[in-house]
């Protein structure tokens, strides 16, 4: 600008201060605008409220049977394992596993027959097969994901295929001998 004062001066002027203050105020304002714009993408209050703890009665699930249920919109498998399946899960040398976990870490003591895991493959989220009697159960008597070929064992641990992790165990506790509370 033609009317600008001495621009070659190295002295700190009131104009420098105003420039910095304006710039800083601009950055802060921009941040303040971005927060609500991004935050609205997160799960809303209704979705979070729908995630309250849930009681499930396990008594009707016969040995060898598995059920699917939803908690917080996520699929959960509850499997009443057979003796053979439990033995197989216990017999595994955990040092050979991709995501090393013992079967004890994945079940509650005294309730070993019941395996409760999230029902979405840890690869890309498909639902592995293996709950219904006719389903393929993979090479390890657990689940087989048809999308990209991941095999889970009878403890829901990843044994083969592209998935990186075991089927996670949701937070739950036994409230009675055959009753659990998820959440």
């Amino acid at each position, binding site marked *: 600008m033609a009317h600008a004062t001495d621009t070659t001066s190295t002295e700190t002027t009131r104009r420098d201060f105003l420039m910095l203050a304006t710039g800083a105020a601009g950055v802060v304002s921009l941040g303040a605008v971005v927060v609500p714009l991004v935050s609205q993408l997160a799960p809303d209050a209704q979705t979070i409220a729908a995630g309250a703890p849930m009681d499930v009665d396990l008594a009707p699930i016969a040995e060898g049977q598995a059920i699917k249920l939803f908690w917080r919109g996520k699929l959960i498998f509850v499997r009443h394992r057979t003796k053979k399946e439990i033995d197989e899960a216990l017999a595994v040398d955990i040092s050979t596993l991709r995501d090393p976990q013992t079967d004890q870490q994945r079940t509650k003591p005294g309730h070993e027959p019941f395996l409760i895991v999230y029902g979405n493959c840890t690869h*890309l989220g*498909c639902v592995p097969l293996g709950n219904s009697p006719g389903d393929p159960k993979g090479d390890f008597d657990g689940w087989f994901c*048809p*999308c*990209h070929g991941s095999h889970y064992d009878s403890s829901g641990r990843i044994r083969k295929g*592209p998935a990186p992790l075991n089927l996670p165990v949701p937070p739950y506790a036994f409230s009675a001998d055959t009753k659990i509370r998820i959440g």
Partner: protein
Amino acid sequence: MSGHSSYVPKSGIERWLDVRLPIVRLMHDSAVSYPTPRNLNYFWTFGGILTFMLVAQIVTGIILAMHYTPQSTLAFNSVEHIMRDVNYGWLLRYLHANGASMFFVAVYVHIFRGLYYGSYKAPREVLWILGVVIFLLMMATAFMGYVLPWGQMSFWGATVITNLFSALPVIGETIVTFLWGGYSVDNPTLNRFFSLHYLLPFMIFGVVILHIWALHVVGQNNPTGVEVKNVAKDTVPFTPYATIKDIFAMVVFTIVFSWFVFYQPNFMGHADNYIPANPAVTPSHIVPEWYFLPFYAILRAIPDKLGGVVAMGSAIVVLAFLPWIDTSKVRSMSYRPIARQLFWAFVAVCIGLGYLGAMPAEGGYVTASQIFTVLYFGFFVALFIIGLFERPQALPNSIADSVLDTLKGGSGARLATATASEPNAKG
């Protein structure tokens, strides 16, 4: 390439407007008098076809949005409502769904044409990169559009693709939750995908304008790859030559498009998507739409989650670096004996990957996908190396020379009539 404007306002209104907003001048200079190389072949008509397809998708899409409900319990039925109750709803939806596939047919021809004739080389790097950006936006738009009918493939496609982001270390899970707006793909996901599916075509439109702008700055490439040296001898005006040719190609393209719409409207879809979304059951065989299959095959070929995602992303991003990967000074592969064979091998690899992407992820298919993935990336390495030693064939002195040579080879009698104004010489 664009010289001085040759626009002369004819009427008083045009003169009045020209000094206030020279929009007629802009259109005249870019679509009428704009010089196009006279040797362009029909592969150069796909830019026009793509513009047509973008407009067609926007028009049919806006109308479909008037009848569609982006709500997880209503979406599937609203699509059936469009098919059964809305006047010509079946036609509009089939035009839109098949239009997406035809859009990709055209864009793949357009990309491979650019690849073969070296259209990415200096000074067209920015033009090419803008094209890659459009391609990425198209993929995002097509993916989100496929989610909207809320069928089984919609739901599980959305689950698988959004889960790709969970492969990112540390922030992956948070990103996925923010994409979903919940703990799984659900109503909030559908709502935001609908919003973005409506937005992205207009972003594509914006980048297309930049793409055409960049094109008009550097000028079109041509089958010889030799730059225009003499505008009078080497080029013809865009109108009528390119305009008529583009319209003819568009008509032929539309015939193929119509054949799908009227005779095979579900050929490129999946029967599973006529089953309403069910979060408890995954279809036994999940495959994306055909135009994503090669990239899907690369994703599945890598036996590691993050590795697969990175490989798939790289397969697309590597295209943007082509101007610097290809070391040859010669643009057109017509004059590059080794690169030309490499190009066709690459086309075969892409088709092979597409086939493998549609097959189940087990046994020999996985091994084959891994081999083809290596070959896919190998193409770019080979292109870099070959350019260093390949001996290209002699280039014509000019576009006009190459046209005359072709005519000489074809028919001696034609030579006498091959003047600068001979329109047949352009093909």
